């Protein structure tokens, strides 16, 4: 069994970056169940120490991809290369990957400490060192006080922290997170998300994070890959992905989008009378549909305005206002909550667009 040497207990863990980040390459992965292509030629490279989030609707193959990397799913074809070594045919228990599951997966018969030490025990690490390392990992996830507790005595968030510590204790080559937050409530989810990122940056392990929650993916990842039907639709930094979606699917899946009719000429789209630069990959000439973010839309109450407020929804710091344009097109705008009271249902308003670049697609889609 090959694994990175564990640190001696004398090394203060909190200051030690394992530097274990390795490159991971998924090459043309295919997985077919009967006639269903769960993975249909997925290729993806994770740089050392990078956190990549795979984002997509359920059934897009993101979990299959992660499980294939873990060795829990057999591939129909394709290669998985970790740190230059082809591990495609290596069994899951020999791959040295740490995994956190969506479902609570702590071993119910073991305490938090013993759960974390489980992988070390299998590696025949002496008891004293094993316990020290496990305690260190629990400290890393902020659970030093809960070492003696069983899973049934821990909250959902605590259980997932222990699972994270358990996955990291074996100094995995790759950390795999399979929707680890989706069973938790919103507040704990946001907390733990930041915690995972902090820990990941600290240990420097290359990480694949699978989620269907776009906010989660954008918040945590170095790069976000949007998957659709077993393929990678686009992979980019969160800001680039949001600002310059490469396809209507990405634009619609990541963030909210308005579809507005426009005409394009030499890279500039005329949308509601405003000239807006069109991003690469847009329709270059003629009529099209511009995909405009709600935050690019400004709404001003105006008795002579051509738009009418149809609905508003209060979302805390911001509010969403749905407007109807004279040609029947509906448009969603994001406004500060303070501005919402001036826009009750029925108000006439003027709509202006910020000149942030937009993706323009063919008019009939």
């Amino acid at each position, binding site marked *: *069994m090959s694994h990175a040497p564990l640190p001696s207990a004398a090394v203060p863990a909190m200051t030690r970056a394992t530097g274990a980040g390795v490159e991971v390459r998924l090459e043309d992965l295919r997985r077919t169940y009967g006639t269903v292509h769960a993975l249909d030629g997925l290729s993806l490279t994770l740089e050392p120490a990078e956190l990549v989030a795979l984002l997509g609707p359920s059934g897009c193959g993101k979990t299959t991809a992660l499980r294939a990397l*873990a060795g*829990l799913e057999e591939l129909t074809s394709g290669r998985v290369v970790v740190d230059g070594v082809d591990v495609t045919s290596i*069994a*899951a*228990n*020999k*791959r*040295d*990957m*740490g*995994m956190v*599951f969506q*479902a*609570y*997966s702590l*071993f*119910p*018969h073991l305490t938090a400490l013993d759960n974390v030490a*489980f*992988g070390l025990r*299998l*590696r025949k690490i002496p008891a004293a060192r094993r316990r020290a390392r496990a305690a260190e990992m629990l400290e890393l996830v902020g659970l030093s006080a809960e070492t003696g507790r*069983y899973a*049934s*005595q*821990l*909250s*959902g*968030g*605590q259980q997932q922290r222990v*699972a994270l510590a*358990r*996955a990291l204790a*074996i100094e995995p080559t790759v950390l*795999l997170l399979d929707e680890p937050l989706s069973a*938790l*409530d919103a*507040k*704990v989810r946001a907390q733990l998300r930041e915690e995972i990122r902090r820990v990941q940056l600290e240990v420097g392990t290359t990480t694949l994070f699978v989620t269907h929650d776009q906010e989660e993916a954008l918040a945590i990842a170095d790069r976000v890959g949007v998957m659709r039907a077993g393929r990678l639709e686009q992979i980019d930094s969160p800001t680039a992905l949001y600002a310059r979606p490469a396809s209507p699917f990405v634009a619609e899946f990541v963030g909210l989008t308005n579809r507005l009719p426009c005409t394009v000429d030499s890279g500039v789209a005329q949308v509601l009378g405003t000239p807006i630069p069109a991003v690469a990959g847009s329709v270059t000439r003629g009529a099209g549909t511009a995909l405009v973010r709600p935050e690019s839309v400004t709404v001003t109450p105006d008795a002579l305005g051509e738009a009418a407020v149809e609905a508003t929804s209060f979302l805390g710091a911001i509010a969403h206002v749905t407007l109807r344009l004279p040609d029947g097109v509906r448009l969603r705008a994001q406004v500060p909550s303070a501005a919402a009271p001036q826009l009750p249902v029925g108000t006439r308003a003027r709509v202006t667009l910020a000149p942030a670049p937009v993706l323009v697609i063919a008019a009939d889609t």
Partner: protein
Amino acid sequence: MAVLTRAQRRRASVFRWAVLLVLGAFFLLPLYAMAEFSTRGGKGRTLEPWRAMFHDPDLTAAVSVSLQLAVLTVAVMLVLLLPTMVWVRLRLPRLHGVLESLCLLPLTIPAIVLVVGLSPVYRQVTRVFGDSPRTLTFVYVVLVLPYAYRALDAGLASIDLRVLSEAARGLGAGWPAVLLRVVLPNMWSAVVSASFLAVALVLGEFTIASLLSFSNLQVTINLLGKADAFLSVAVSLAALLFAFVLLLGLSFVGAGRHRRSRARPVEES
């Protein structure tokens, strides 16, 4: 929930005690009768049969054989059944129904029919393994399958087998380690109850051993009864009490593994 009045509560309590007494009498009276009969002497009481049973070489041998059979049956049953059931659950879920009906089959076949089918098989078995009564293990494993299957199936259903085994494999556990370190400890009570049933069945089995001409505890007791009624009844009672003590002991083993305290509700912090 309706609150019971004092009178209702007293009536319920009287009813409970009445049920307990009637059932207790139902179970204890035969035992008492056995004790009474086995201590009858010419004049007054005697413990002679109870003394004699420890000096009867056939009997001690039969006790030893039945205990060995119980241990072997439990061991073979667990080694055979548990990995198979885990594998079917994880990898071949479509075969779940097939495995279940296969395991429940012995329940539908009367022992006497089983023996008719088994006697030619056992001619081969004795040729290969010798004619030790321990070869009864094979047929006993088949006999305990339905009970053991039910108990183990309930145990497996109570844990998230897929996630736990995948978590263990991800941490470096091979299949033997998954079974021994994760599956077994988390369904220990199911394993203990499957073993209980197997032990109880083996210690009480008479028909098949007798018809295949092997001598186990029950066969020997039956033989003894023909020669010495007092001794036979004393041994029967002793066997009953022994099985009771054994099962009680096993249940403590099961409880001992369950020392972790029950969950108290935890608030998210």
